[in-house]
């Protein structure tokens, strides 16, 4: 079961919009960290994902295990939120 979801985004990233659209369509809530507005959190996104890219979607389960999806990747995102 999903406890919460955080998406690291930027204002110009079209793929970030896709992740948000997908989660909205599935009726799943999320918190967004826009790195243009919070540039000091870039290192956090990099550290979590190991990548210099957005979107980074962090799905935290009720048992506090965490799944990190880098990019717009439905094959990983869909099972992660179920």
């Amino acid at each position, binding site marked *: 079961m999903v406890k919460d979801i955080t998406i690291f985004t*930027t204002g*110009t*990233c*079209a*793929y*970030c*919009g*896709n992740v948000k*659209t*997908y989660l909205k*369509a599935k009726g799943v809530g999320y918190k967004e960290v826009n*790195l*243009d507005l919070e*540039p000091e959190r*870039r290192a956090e996104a*990099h550290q979590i994902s*190991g*990548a*210099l*890219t*957005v*979107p980074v979607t962090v799905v935290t389960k009720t048992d506090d295990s965490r799944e990190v999806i*880098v*990019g*717009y990747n*439905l094959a990983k995102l869909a099972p992660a939120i179920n």
Partner: protein
Amino acid sequence: MSEIPKHDIVMVGAGPAALTAAIYTTREDIDTLLFERGVIGGLAAVTDVIDNYPGFSTGISGLELADSLRKQAERFGAVIELGEVTALNDEGKYKRLQTTSGEILARAVLVATGSDYNRTGIPGEQEYYAKGVHFCATCDGAFYRDKRLVVIGGGNSAVQETIFLTRYASHIDILARSTIKASSVLVKELQPFIDQGKVSVNLGIKPLEIAGDANGVNKVLATNKEGKKVTFNTDGVFVFIGLKPNSDFLRGSGVKLSDLGFVLTDDNLETNVPGVFAAGDIRSGATMQIASASGEGATAALKIREYLEGRLHSTKVHQLEVIP
């Protein structure tokens, strides 16, 4: 077993060509389903600023244009499914599509899958993908504030994305194999950054390897026009070296492709498989312009309507009879 869903039209892709076509078809209450495996709006959506799409006197961001096209299509009833079409088979009246959501049937199909950026294929490109090597400046540029960058390519995309990246990077080396082939308007926009010393244009450069260490990319090894080895120190590399068609799912479908993998169509934008049409960047002969893609989408929609009404091929036969 549940019945396989049937639609009048399935559009593969949801870029400007398909979204424009969907505006036309749904406005006439033709049942239309779009499948998009990547980003809604296609490559247009990941372009920073679009200055040459008619109707926007001061330009428009790619993301805004894509969002507006999507909303307009959805206003008339278009349904966009986020998923991938993996195969297409012609069964006469219906085309059978394999998708990540299962099988569907369509009376007509519009292939509008567009293109993706080419890869260089040089060592390091795959190894450092998203960890120093990137193909989307609007997605990943923000990680390079006050860093040095290399942009590989010399066409419109390379120059446009370089201009975008100047808002973050301290310095950008453009590496072009021959010359800068971007439009004169873009070159003019780039010039002030060259004058400021923020961008250096390096011509006749052939990249050989993207190298780095555990911390990420730190240089690009290349040869210059004299064939001598040169090194460009950098924190990241953005690659924009042309486009490759997204037509792999059509292999085995019977739809004819050009040698480069683009879809061949006739004057009606119909492929050799009746009822399967193509529009936009995926089509052989496309101009790779957003305005052209939209125009082709509108044309395809009207031709598909004729096809669904049984008028398209009867017109062709009539033309054959009257032309000596």
